[in-house]
């Protein structure tokens, strides 16, 4: 059994493709294998798969739960139907028009939705869905009011008029295509950027990822797919009415995604199949909605990752268990880092200069007249008691906060950061006090996300897995491996980052920050929680980095570590700089000791 599984693992790529091909072929044969009743059900499943794959992207990768997507399906359905019944245009043209209109409306919805968050986000989508539904009922001239549009013609292609069988095949083809697209996206920089933003917006921004661009892309994709699905359904059914597109439909769409498993590729297929077949199986006419409500509840409570998601998790653990029995594929160790740090050491003597920085939070004066400069290529440590303002200062430098007064200059030029992602593009990278690795991504992917800010190919390339995109992926993967080598990571690189031991997490975070190609690195308590051995590794890494010309600003409490590694130390207390100088001087300075210990008279000597 063991060796069988290992054989299967080695050829799992080919095995997957072959089994998929067989299944698709079987499905394609269905029109000749079953009667119209069941074929129609399969057709319905197909239309759901199209819409819900788009929503899967939105919910699973972007973390945006839209409870109004029925409105986007309606847009596609109604616009295409209006054009084909009133203007006599061909299906292929009106379907495109429907998709376009859905994109437009989807964009309108996306803007306030992405700006908001949490509860408000879902409320906004609900409101939009309701508005669209009301428009469908009231705008008689265009929508036919409560009676809807009927007599919608079936598509035609070169004289051949589609029937249920061919509509089914069309839907099957589109479904398969759409599933391939989302799979491609997951393995691209766009997919990683979406997941990163969903998990931890601030960490993603610190890597140069712009939340709006990434989430809008997800929204647009889902809107277009919903519109297409709507158009197809309308032209297969010949009749549409507002009843099909109200709030409860939107809820069903969400249910399909979470039942199958948000973020998995096959989730919507499983979810749609269950949702379409179950009431038929149970022969339910009444209480159908109650059943759906119950299923939703059960999923949220017992199976939050959905069916495919949970299965994937269980199998994943097993497979990883087996995979470890073999030797890991040998990669040539390359301890040189050729083009990793392109910008390094081209900056002149002073990397960063702070002058008179003040920062208030309401009544709290967190930083008072902070001034010092950081030399290029130096390790500059910031020390001070709890609450002295060290992290606040780092936040000001990295653009998370803006200073109320004072100036910052980077490489001699005035620095006015408006956001974390701006600052990252200028060459400043940072890590955080508490680990912010992206748990859903693997170790390797975490590091690759760091490159998303500078090197992301276009969305279309990512979807279609073009040769350009494949080349770029290889380059990024190679760089990521090199960075992991640099930090001395020897463990499994395909493991989800959530399983990393703590010390490794901190180091991988540094690798991720390095992936943004910075020349100034800000580290917030990197040694916190590390064992002595791990701190040794950290020291080695920092020395290597400065050898490459990087400048490092470091907040730390392990004073011996600070002493060994720093060129300069700045001491903060109560938001003020007590002094800046060489570590031996600063750490034995009586004022510093007093700041830490609170002694008025300090015990003699140290």
């Amino acid at each position, binding site marked *: 059994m063991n060796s069988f599984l290992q054989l299967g693992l080695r050829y799992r790529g080919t095995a997957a493709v072959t089994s998929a091909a067989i299944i698709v072929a079987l499905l394609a044969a269905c029109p000749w294998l079953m009667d119209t009743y069941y074929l129609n059900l399969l057709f319905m499943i197909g239309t759901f798969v199209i819409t819900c794959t788009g929503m899967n992207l939105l919910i699973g990768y972007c973390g945006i739960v839209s409870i109004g997507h029925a409105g986007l399906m309606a847009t596609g359905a109604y616009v295409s139907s209006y054009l084909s019944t009133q203007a006599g245009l061909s299906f292929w043209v009106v379907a495109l028009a429907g998709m376009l209109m859905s994109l437009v409306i989807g964009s309108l919805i996306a803007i306030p939705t992405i700006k908001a968050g949490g509860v408000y986000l879902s409320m906004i989508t609900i409101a939009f869905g309701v508005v669209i539904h009301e428009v469908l009922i009231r705008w008689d001239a265009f929508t036919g009011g409560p009676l809807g549009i009927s007599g919608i013609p079936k598509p035609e292609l070169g004289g051949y008029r589609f029937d249920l069988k061919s509509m089914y095949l069309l839907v099957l083809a589109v479904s398969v295509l759409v599933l391939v697209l989302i799979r491609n996206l997951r393995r691209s920089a766009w997919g990683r950027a979406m997941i990163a933003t969903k998990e931890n917006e601030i960490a993603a921004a610190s890597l140069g990822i712009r939340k709006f661009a990434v989430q809008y892309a997800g929204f647009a994709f889902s809107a277009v797919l919903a519109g297409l699905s709507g158009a197809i359904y309308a032209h297969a059914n010949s009749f549409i009415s507002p009843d099909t597109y109200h709030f409860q439909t939107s809820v069903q769409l969400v249910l399909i995604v979470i039942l199958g498993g948000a973020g998995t590729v096959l989730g919507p297929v499983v979810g749609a199949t269950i949702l379409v077949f179950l009431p038929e199986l149970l022969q339910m006419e009444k209480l159908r909605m109650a059943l759906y409500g119950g299923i939703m509840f059960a999923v949220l409570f017992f199976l939050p990752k959905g069916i495919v998601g949970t299965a994937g998790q269980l199998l994943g653990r097993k497979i990883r268990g087996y995979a470890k029995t073999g030797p890991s594929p040998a990669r040539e160790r390359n301890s040189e880092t050729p083009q990793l740090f392109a910008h390094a050491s081209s900056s002149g003597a002073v990397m960063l200069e702070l002058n008179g920085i003040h920062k208030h939070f309401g009544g709290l004066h967190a930083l008072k007249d902070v001034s010092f400069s950081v030399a290029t290529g130096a390790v500059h440590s910031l020390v001070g008691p709890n609450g002295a303002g060290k992290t606040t200062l780092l936040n000001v430098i990295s653009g998370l906060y803006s200073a109320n007064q004072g100036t910052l200059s980077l490489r001699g030029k005035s620095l006015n950061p408006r956001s974390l992602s701006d600052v990252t593009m200028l060459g400043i990278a940072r890590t955080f006090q508490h680990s912010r690795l992206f748990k859903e991504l693997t170790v390797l992917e975490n590091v690759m996300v760091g490159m998303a800010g500078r090197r992301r190919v276009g969305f279309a390339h990512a979807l279609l897995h073009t040769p350009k995109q494949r080349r770029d992926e290889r380059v990024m993967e190679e760089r990521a491996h090199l960075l992991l080598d640099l930090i001395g990571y020897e463990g499994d690189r395909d493991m989800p980052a959530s399983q990393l031991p703590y010390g490794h997490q901190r180091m991988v975070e540094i690798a991720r920050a390095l992936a943004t190609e910075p020349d100034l690195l800000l580290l917030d308590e990197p040694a916190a929680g590390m064992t002595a051995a791990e701190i040794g590794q950290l020291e080695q890494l920092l020395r290597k980095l400065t050898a490459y010309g990087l400048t490092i600003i470091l907040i730390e*409490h392990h004073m011996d570590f600070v002493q060994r590694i720093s060129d300069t130390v700045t001491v903060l207390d109560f938001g003020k700089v007590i002094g800046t100088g060489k570590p031996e001087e600063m750490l034995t300075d009586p004022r510093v000791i007093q700041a830490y210990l609170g002694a008025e008279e300090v*015990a003699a000597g140290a």
Partner: protein
Amino acid sequence: MLSIQGLEVRYGAIQALRRIDLELAAGEIVAVIGSNGAGKTTLLQSILGLVRPDKGVITFDGKPITQLSASRTANLGISLVPEGREVFGTLTVLENLRLGLKNKIGSTSKEQFERELASIYERFPRLYERRDQQAMTLSGGEQQMLVLSRAMISKPKLLLLDEPSLGLAPIIVSDIFASIQELAKGGTAVLLVEQMAHKALSIASRGYVIDNGRVAFQGKSSDLLQDQRMIKAYLGVH
């Protein structure tokens, strides 16, 4: 009053506390000092029950309280004044104080509450002046007085203080520390976690220095104040 033996706490992969042993008697003030991240707050949270220990025994007033939740321990007479002065900003000073009665509503009569209030106002006249003001308009020092008073209203047997001096000017800190001494005189046992080691040791009878989750060393305050090891361990120079 309080006895801790072999306490160990882990957060996932991190060992926050390793085999802590600690003793505290009624009316005693004991300081727990150490650098940032050494585990001091975790210690207080374990005693109160906000964090569940993995190993070890905590005994209070003769009873084991190791795995009890925060509401149970609070009812047994342990109060925590957390780091960062968690006041109820939109409520008035008086309302904040009234909340200190917690679950003892009924059992503490109105007169008793009034008496407690009177002694609090006497100790901290500024709280009396501001009794109808919203707590968020108070200064840092006044908020610290408020939180301290609120903890005292329920007449705890054990008071846990987490960095009461944080962010306060030295003069105010002296005020607060003087009040803590008074409280201890009244029989309350006080466990005082501080970064301002010398200040803490000046009112405590004994101290424990925590480094990286373990008790590095301990002793009488007078001894510790002279101890060279303090500066070294404190600044993490090994």
